[in-house]
Every structure is written in C-alpha cells, then in structure tokens.
C-alpha cells in the first residue's frame, strides 16, 4: 500500500434510490493506521455507507476511493479481497458446519486449509468446529465471522456493531483484529450504537444524521 494514499477518500458522495436520498454530500478521509467510529440513529445511512466502502453499493454521485481505487469503476472488484466486512447479521451458511464455512472461505481466497483450525482455535471455537452454523448462537456465529477475517490480512476493516452479542473475550479478539490491521498500515471503520466502547478503539468519531455526515 502506498503510504500517502488515504485508505478511504469520500468527497461529496451521495446515494439516491428512486426519489429517496440515502446519503448526501458525504466527505470522509481515513488515513492508514486510523480507525473511525461511525454513529447515527437507525436509518441514518450507516450500513449503506459501509456497503459503499465495501464496494457492494455504487454511489450515485461524488468521488469515492478506497485504497486509491475509484469505486465507480470495475477496478473495485480487485479491491474486494483487501476489504473485510463483518455485518450485524450473520452471513454463514446455516446448513454447513463452522469448519465447512471457513474452509469454503479459505478455498475461495486461496488460503491453506490448515489455517481454518488455527483461526477457530484463536476465537475459541475449536470444540464447536463440527457444529452446524445454524445450531450456533448469534455470538458464536459472529466469532466465526471474525475468525474468517483472521485468516487473511485485510487493508480495510468494516465492522457493523462490532461489540454486539460478544462476550469479553470475543471483544478482546475484535480489538486485537482492529489493532493488527491498523498496525499494518490499514484502516478500520466501526459502526456502532455503543459510543463509549467504539470511542476507545477509534482515533476519531463522526455522526450520520439523515444521510449527512456531521
């Protein structure tokens, strides 16, 4: 990664769906090694902003760059393996075991299979590796998703409600994951309603109000 290039650079970014404006003139720059906390009421546009940063939603106006790549071009596909997103809704396949879920991710990303058991142990799920994801608690599923992020080194971490449904050990794990990413010159955007906890992890905090960043 080029040190001078911001990890996130949004200037005048807006998103309109039909006649509804979701985001309006959002300016946000996140430099390497920085974590930004993003707050806002329900429906303020926090998750949509995360989706834009994750290249999953294309903004309808403004300049949007992640790791120097314009998010309105098809070059953004190449960025995806460098971006980690853990949403508040589990994205595991409920029929598959935790090990199978992570093995699928490992195979797609070209990561060695042995790494799956390593990261399951790191998040305290070694004993539940053969349990189907659908039979696991919400907290266990979130741990497994963080384990997926531990398998590779991401340059941008996008975490939606990173403390939700997690016990103290798992919170330490998330904080360690963020610290590791920042230490490597990456960046993190943390969306949360838990201002106190996120404020401790973030270098600065911003607030979205009805699609406008304050």
């Amino acid at each position, binding site marked *: 990664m080029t040190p001078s290039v911001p990890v996130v650079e949004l200037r005048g970014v807006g998103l309109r769906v039909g006649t509804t404006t979701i985001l309006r003139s959002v300016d946000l720059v996140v430099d390497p090694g920085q974590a930004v906390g993003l707050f806002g009421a329900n429906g303020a546009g926090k998750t949509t902003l995360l*989706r834009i940063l*994750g*290249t*999953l939603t*294309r903004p309808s106006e403004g300049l949007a760059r992640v790791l120097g790549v314009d998010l309105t071009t*098809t070059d953004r*596909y190449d960025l*995806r*393996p460098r*971006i*980690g*997103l853990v*949403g508040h*809704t*589990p*994205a*595991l*396949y409920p*029929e*598959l075991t935790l090990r*199978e879920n992570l093995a*699928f*991710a490992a*195979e*797609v*990303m*070209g990561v060695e299979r042995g790494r799956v058991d390593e990261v399951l142990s790191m998040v305290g799920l070694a004993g539940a590796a053969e349990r*189907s994801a659908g039979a696991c608690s919400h907290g266990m599923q979130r741990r497994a*998703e963080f384990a*997926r992020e531990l398998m590779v080194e991401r340059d941008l971490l996008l975490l939606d409600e990173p403390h939700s449904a997690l016990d103290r050990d798992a919170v330490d794990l998330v904080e360690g994951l963020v610290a590791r990413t920042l230490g490597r010159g990456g960046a993190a955007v943390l969306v949360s309603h838990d201002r106190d906890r996120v404020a401790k992890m973030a270098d600065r905090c911003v607030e979205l109000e009805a699609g406008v960043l304050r």
Partner: protein
Amino acid sequence: MSGIRRQALAVARRDLARERRRGEVLWVTIPFGVIALLLVPLAIGTDQATLHRVGPGLYWVVVLLFGVLVGVRGAADETGPQRDAAALLGLDPVAVFAGRTIATSSLLVLFEIVVGVAAVAFYDIDLIGVGWLVVVVLLVAAGLGTLATLASSIVAAGAGAAALVPLLVAPLAIPLLLGATQSLDGLRQGRSILSWILLMIVVVLVLGIVGVVSSGPLQESR
C-alpha cells in the same frame, strides 16, 4: 489450479453440501417428479401402447419442469449478507456461475436417473443405445443446469425479475426438449441422432457463454 477453477469447485462443493443437509432435491423434488409420472396414466388411461408411446416425451417434460425448479430454488435461498460476504472473499462472478451450474447439473443427473427408472417402470420405455442415452442425459443436465443457473441469477438480480423467468426459460428449454425427445425416438427407430446431439451441445455452449458474460453485470445489479 487457476483461481476461477478453484473458486468454481469451491462453490459447487458448498452448494452440494448445503443440498445434502437440506435434502430438498432428494426428499421433495425427486418424489414429486415420480408422482407426476405416476399421475399421468390416471389422467389419460392405462392403455399400455399409449403409455409406451408418450412415456419418453412425458419423462423429458417432467425433467425440464422440475429441473428448472431445482436450479432456481438453489439460488433463492442465499441471503444478502451471504452474497456480500462471498463477494468480499474475492469470489469471481464467473466462478459463482460455473460452480452453481456444476452443482445444479450434478443434482439434475441424479434427478434424471431416479425419475428415469420410474419412467421405465411405469411406461415400459425401451432402453436402446445406452451409451447415447448417457450422453443425452448428461447434455440435458448440463443445458438445464446452465439455464436454471442463468434464470436464478436474473431472479436474484432484482425486483420484478422473477416474473421474467418463465418467459426466458420456456423458449430456451424447447431446443433441449426437442433434442432429448428426438434422440430417444431416433434411437428407437435406428436413425442417426448426431444432429440432435449437436443441437443440444450448441444450446449448452450458447447458454454457458451468455451466463459467463452476464454473470458480472447481474451480480452488480443486486
């Protein structure tokens, strides 16, 4: 192994593992296919000569209708967060299309074999030219699997698209239905079926190319 090939195999294995746990094809779709074949004699009568004549055609109609159902249902159960997480693994849309097609086609081969055994039993269908029959079964599975995957990608792409699926599937399935029925007929009468085999190969290739080319734009339009 190339990235796309590795990813396609991972997607195929994932889809087959999910299906194995759910058992929808094995315990719901296949029994319904067999029941559909069983119901026809109740509607048209049990005259053995008539059943023997219409049996192969009915078998392929059942395979086509239920086959598309197998493929379209497969994609419908993937949630938005699951699709997002898969995309951020760097999963290539072409690999998703190829992997899903491999999984759906494999399930369709199973469907064709089990329902085929029932069709032979109910309609006394002659099994002539087993080697060619295997080729026809595989081509129909590949064609339908590709068509169903393409249709399910369109459904997943967005609002109102589901209504287009019958309009898309029906005309594209006709050459497969025609090729399959005429091949069986040709084998029974000792005619060459090469032209029908060729037709099915062309359909499979065209659907495959359309699926590969449209996989990226369809994924991005979600």
